[in-house]
């Protein structure tokens, strides 16, 4: 064999200290200061959490939305290894890297929010575990997936450190790790939606449905592709690399397909349950519902035709629209459409927002460090 089917991954190189990493460092330092306050004085000292809204943005944004945003690795790996679309292979590593950090931080972020965090291990202990609990399934599954993803990603480190034997051994088992890495996100991304079911009538009927697991899974897969569009465009512009348009164009088409499936289930369910009427009530919930719907339909207007998909700016905006749609689907179900009666309000405090921002900064910082020093992004021919 003379030529590769596609470029091999290679480190981007370059300085690690620059404006972007410096800003990230400051944001992380602020986050650490807030978290120290939180662990000394309790959740009430830094958050606006209350008993009407016991879950704020640390759960809904950092974990529920954060993990959905980390579905790029899962979505692309499924496309490559399950649907055997090998041409997307160069997208696997960068997507997996973002997923790895998204999930690992979601897992760590949970600890900040747990009121009795030192008991966290109880979830894995058979005498405490409650298999009836959706939260139990989510926690177990996300923990397992974080582990699986590190194994899935470990060839990057093994290559860098020249551990060929270890990599060869791992390669033999990789198919099973990949299968597991496809199953686990399916399980917990759907269960993240099922978390709403037990909350019953407190969740607006626009988001309270028995098919919520399917909705969350389909949207997570779609968001996964949206994120890859977004990340590829950002990475190309930040590192001044060529955009992988030959990959992103067909990927965008796949995304529109899964999005169509999502919208069919979403609307079909609302009609079947007779809940569509709530969308026409003069309420905030109805407004954010239509906002969510708008964001999920905008991609068809932006990149509906093959010609439109050749425009990288349109691909980028379509990816962002999907991400925002995913944000609203989750925010609407867990916070805006969640009503525990009169007198309860929640809007995140500055400290809560800064912690979420700090978590995001860790992701960006780690992405920069790893892509500059480890073989993740496809080798850029022009660089030689």
């Amino acid at each position, binding site marked *: *064999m003379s*030529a590769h*089917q596609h470029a*091999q991954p290679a480190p981007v190189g370059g300085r690690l200290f620059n404006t972007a990493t410096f800003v990230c460092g400051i944001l992380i330092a602020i986050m650490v200061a807030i978290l120290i306050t939180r662990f000394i*004085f*309790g*959740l*009430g000292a830094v958050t606006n*959490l209350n*008993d*009407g809204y*016991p879950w704020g943005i640390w759960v809904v944004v950092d974990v529920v939305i954060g993990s959905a945003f980390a579905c790029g690795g899962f979505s692309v790996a499924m496309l490559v*290894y*399950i*649907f*055997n*679309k*090998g*041409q997307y292979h160069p997208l696997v590593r960068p997507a997996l890297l973002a997923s790895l950090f998204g999930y690992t931080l979601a897992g760590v972020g949970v600890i900040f929010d747990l*009121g*009795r*965090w030192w*008991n966290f291990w*109880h*979830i894995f202990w058979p005498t*405490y*575990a*409650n298999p*009836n*609990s*959706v*939260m*139990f*399934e989510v926690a177990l599954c996300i923990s397992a997936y974080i582990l699986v993803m590190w194994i899935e990603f470990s060839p990057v480190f093994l290559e860098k450190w020249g551990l060929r034997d270890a990599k060869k051994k791992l*390669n033999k088992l*990789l*198919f*099973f790790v*990949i*299968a*597991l890495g*496809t*199953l686990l996100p*399916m*399980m917990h991304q759907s*269960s993240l939606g*099922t*978390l709403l*079911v*037990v*909350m*019953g*009538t*407190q969740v607006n009927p626009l988001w309270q449905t*028995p*098919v919520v697991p*399917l909705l969350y*899974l389909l949207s997570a897969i779609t968001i996964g592709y949206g994120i890859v569009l977004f990340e590829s465009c950002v990475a190309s512009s930040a590192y001044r690399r060529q955009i992988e348009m030959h990959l992103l164009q067909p990927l965008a088409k796949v995304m529109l397909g899964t999005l169509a499936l999502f919208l069919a289930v979403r609307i079909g369910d609302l009609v079947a349950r007779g809940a569509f009427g709530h969308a026409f009530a003069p309420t905030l919930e109805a407004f954010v519902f239509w906002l969510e719907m708008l964001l999920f339909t905008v991609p068809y207007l932006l990149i509906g035709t093959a010609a439109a998909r050749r425009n990288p700016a349109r691909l980028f905006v379509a990816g962002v629209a999907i991400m925002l749609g995913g944000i609203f689907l989750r925010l609407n179900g867990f916070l805006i459409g969640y009503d525990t*009666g009169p*007198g309860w309000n929640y809007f995140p405090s500055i400290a809560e927002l800064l912690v979420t921002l700090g978590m995001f900064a860790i992701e960006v910082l780690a992405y920069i460090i790893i892509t500059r020093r480890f073989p993740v992004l496809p080798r850029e021919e022009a660089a030689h």
Partner: protein
Amino acid sequence: MATRRDFLRGCLAGGAVAATVVPTPAVARDTHERPPEALGLLYDATLCVGCQACVAACKQANDNPAEFNALDKLWDSPLDTSGHTFNIIKMYRHGTMTTKDSEENGFAFMKTSCMHCADPSCVSACPVTAMFKDPVTGVVGYDPDACIGCRYCVAACPFGIPKYQYDSPTGQIGKCELCRHRHDEGHYSACAEVCPTGATLFGRSEDLLAEARRRLKLQPGQWTTMPRGRLPAPGETAEQAAKWKAPRDQQYEAQVGDYVPHIYGETEYGGTQVLKLSAVPFAKVGMPDLPPRSSAATSETIQHTLYGGLLMPLAVLGALTFVARRNVVADDDSEKGGQ
């Protein structure tokens, strides 16, 4: 290597996956019923005079600190239940507030505390069994040593009962446990023990339900005997009654209220062990309109359909492994070819 057959195989795996997230009623979990010996309370809002003795007694029995909401921090003044207040009496006010228990231009009281559901959302939600339902008494208890503080119980409860102590780095969940820690000492629920009018009555839920039905059948304004403290089970012997320290016969003559014809808690979410009678519609005194099927049953039906015996996940894993094995090996070969 991307052949049509591979693609079809992928679709097959995709289909198997879709099957895992579309719940079928195959392993439907029915709503649980109250255990036969379930303990509970009957709160009759028309008997309540709003004296708050039960609020004070609850604080004492549970060793909870006072909460101040007035400028002069003289006495306990909680506005709602909280991580440090497990029971309060709320007030309904309308218009001129002249008539007690009148929806129009009247006022009324309502007790807010744990309903001890037959099928509690909090117990279903809790990932570590820190919320648990006693199989005999049906009391919904809480174990802080098990709790991880995720507050899913707080989010799940339709009555807004489990509350978290946000003011502490080691905050716990606080909620009424029907004074289960005092039962062995011969004390039943402190709120019922101190209630001067019998508005809060302790007993077996079954007996309390019968008592509530009896009151609903009487004419409003009619004089009848109202029990206070504890409602003895029918045919209860003196020996059985001796388990409790409070005197047994505390009944008195009182007038029957003009109730709305509904016993709150008889059927809501499969029934609750705490039952309520009121003259003002329940929706107006803060009791949510709940269907007879519990959300715990719906949630667990979905979970067990998908994960029961791990059958579905293992089947999907098998399909995925089979497909991935072919595709990953192909990928590996092409990489080797390039080296």
